[in-house]
């Protein structure tokens, strides 16, 4: 018996739950002050999230997927991308998308039942829309990266999916093709402990989700996803590898879904309050705040001002959403084909007639 191959999965953490560094700041964070704008983004997205949930509860929004607890992972991923890179999200990574320029109202439009949310106004026009069929965005990202590679463009493709998503065959196909073609892809598995009611341990027998990348010969890392520093550093490493033509990565960000799966879900059915309480001890916001305050980079007055500004900005976005008129009926037909077939034209006319607009 000889050794054919061996592997190890490292776990990355810099800022512990108590807000203290467990290791020196890595290259991704040259100085603590660099964290302040990202901390502010985290607070912004948390404000947005709370207001979106409230909006849904009043019946003014459809089903909404909260991002509570994922802020460090989401914002850290978003901050690590360049505009020319392509981002392929699942459905709750608003923090990453805001970092790319997305208007909050577009999130609301999407969950409000209006396709125009997917215009992702403000974000790079090549970014992928929200993706409901789980993990398919990972394989699309691999295809995008293949386009970049074939054209010799210095761009990378970054996809996110959940712990549940990492069970999906499309995720594995992304791992496989990223490795086979040495594609500039970063697959971010956001392990928040749950896929609706199914716990992480029911998804797979693997000790870590990061190790799934071994199946494709990829770079793999498990990361404390509640530690913004670790997220940034993991993304830096994976990004540099990808940009250098050294291939793709699977990064597992360990975090926790503090809210229900969506507003249509009731997590009390399947998980204990104790578990949620324990997760709150490790959430990403407080630890970073503690750190920044200790560094003299943040204080209560700043926070109060920023919270207020966040609230106002989100409210303005909510109003903009609420004031957006419904699309006309012909919108159903107008984006189906570049050249509308005759039968579709006829149906479009019939739909207009049905509205008395013939």
């Amino acid at each position, binding site marked *: 018996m000889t050794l054919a191959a061996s592997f190890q999965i490292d776990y990355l953490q810099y800022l512990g739950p108590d807000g203290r560094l467990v290791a020196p700041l890595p290259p991704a964070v040259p100085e603590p002050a660099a964290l302040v704008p990202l901390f502010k983004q985290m607070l912004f997205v948390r404000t947005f999230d709370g207001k979106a949930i409230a909006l849904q509860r009043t019946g003014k929004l*459809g*089903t909404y997927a909260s991002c509570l607890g994922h802020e460090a992972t989401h914002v850290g991923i978003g901050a690590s991308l360049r505009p020319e890179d392509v981002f392929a999200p699942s*459905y709750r990574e608003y923090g990453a998308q805001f970092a790319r320029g997305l208007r909050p109202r577009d999130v609301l439009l*999407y*969950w*409000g*039942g*209006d*396709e125009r949310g997917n215009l992702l106004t403000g974000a790079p026009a090549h970014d992928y829309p*929200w993706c*409901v*069929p*789980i993990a398919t965005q990972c394989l699309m990202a691999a295809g995008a990266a293949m386009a970049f590679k074939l054209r010799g463009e210095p761009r990378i493709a970054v996809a996110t999916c*959940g712990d*549940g*998503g990492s*069970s*999906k*065959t499309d995720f594995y196909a992304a791992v496989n093709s990223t490795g086979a073609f040495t594609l500039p892809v970063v697959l971010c598995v956001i392990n928040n402990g749950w*896929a*609706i*009611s*199914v716990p992480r341990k*029911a*998804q*797979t027998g693997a000790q870590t989700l990061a190790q799934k990348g071994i199946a494709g010969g990829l770079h793999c890392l498990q990361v404390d996803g509640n530690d913004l520093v670790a997220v940034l550093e993991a993304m830096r490493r994976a990004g540099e590898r990808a940009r250098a033509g050294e291939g793709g990565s699977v990064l597992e960000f360990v975090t926790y879904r503090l809210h229900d799966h969506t507003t*249509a*879900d009731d997590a009390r*059915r*399947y998980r204990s309050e104790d578990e949620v309480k324990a997760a709150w001890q490790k959430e990403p916001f407080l630890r970073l705040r503690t750190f920044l305050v200790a560094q003299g980079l943040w204080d209560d007055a700043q926070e109060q001002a920023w919270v207020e500004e966040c609230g106002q900005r989100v409210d303005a976005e909510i109003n903009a959403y609420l004031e957006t008129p*419904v*699309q006309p*009926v012909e*919108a*159903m*037909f107008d984006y*189906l084909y570049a050249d509308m077939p005759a*039968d*579709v034209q006829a*149906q479009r006319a019939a*739909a207009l007639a*049905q*509205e008395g607009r013939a």
Partner: protein
Amino acid sequence: MSAQPITLIEAITQALAWEIAHDPSVVVLGEDVGVNGGVFRATAGLQQRFGAQRVIDTPLDETTIAGLTVGMASQGMKPVAEAQFDGFMYPMVDFIVCHAARMRYRTRGRLHCPMVLRVPWGGGIRAPEHHSEANEAIFTNVPGLRVVMPSSPQRAYGLLLAAIRDPDPVIYMEPKRIYRQYKELVPDDGQALPLDVCYVLRDGCDITLVTWGAQVKETLEAADRLADEGIRAEVIDVATLKPLDFATIAESVAKTGRCVIVHEAAKTAGFGAEIAARIAGECLYDLLAPVERVTGYDTHIPLFRLEMKYLPSVDKIVAAARRALAHA
């Protein structure tokens, strides 16, 4: 006997419970079907009652669900799998077409696949993208399958029992929009319904309205509206699309000479086409007017702000019926 009237989805739960209790080879599997009882609560309480060996949460992968189901079924179990929503069935197509529908044929009867794939189907519940699709046409052209669509609590119960007991694969499509529309007394007596029979929900002699699933609701309402005008519409709930009980439809068209077919799916190559084609091939001389189809448009069902404009409606059905009746 269930003392209380129950909804369509409760009838599904009741049928599952009956069959799990009475046949040890039945297992239920899917995403969130266990402790959570399914995102629509179709399996509510079943894991608690029958245990995690009978009601199984799977990893999040529809290929996996389909493949495990075929594997279990071909080795003597009767799995009842759930696809969480219509829009998530597509990764199951390969196993359904290549294995479930063919195992008996391929092995000359040596192995077979007594399995059911349940899927909540159709629009109109203000759901996110891919939660509102009508994709029955993907399955109706596939030999070896059965495709079933209940539209009432009683039919949901009887057809699901039949589907589970049938030794061949059944796609059981649940009209989610009417899951909780109304209640019926559904005796919990384990009585199955036949898998190849259309239901004449209302007798009439002026025009035949043919539909299935949630559109039964609008179609019956359209029949009411027509009745107000003195037009007696016969309403047929196809209920079992494959195999199709065309005899019942033909008999009705022979009587009325006019037919409107109503379905949510896109028109082109939707299953309504098959019914119209059968009429054109077998009932031509009975026809007094062109066969009308009231369907979804040939576009994707929009997100929910516009979805009701996509779906067939009472107005559209009544208008089509009037067009058909206008022919001499």
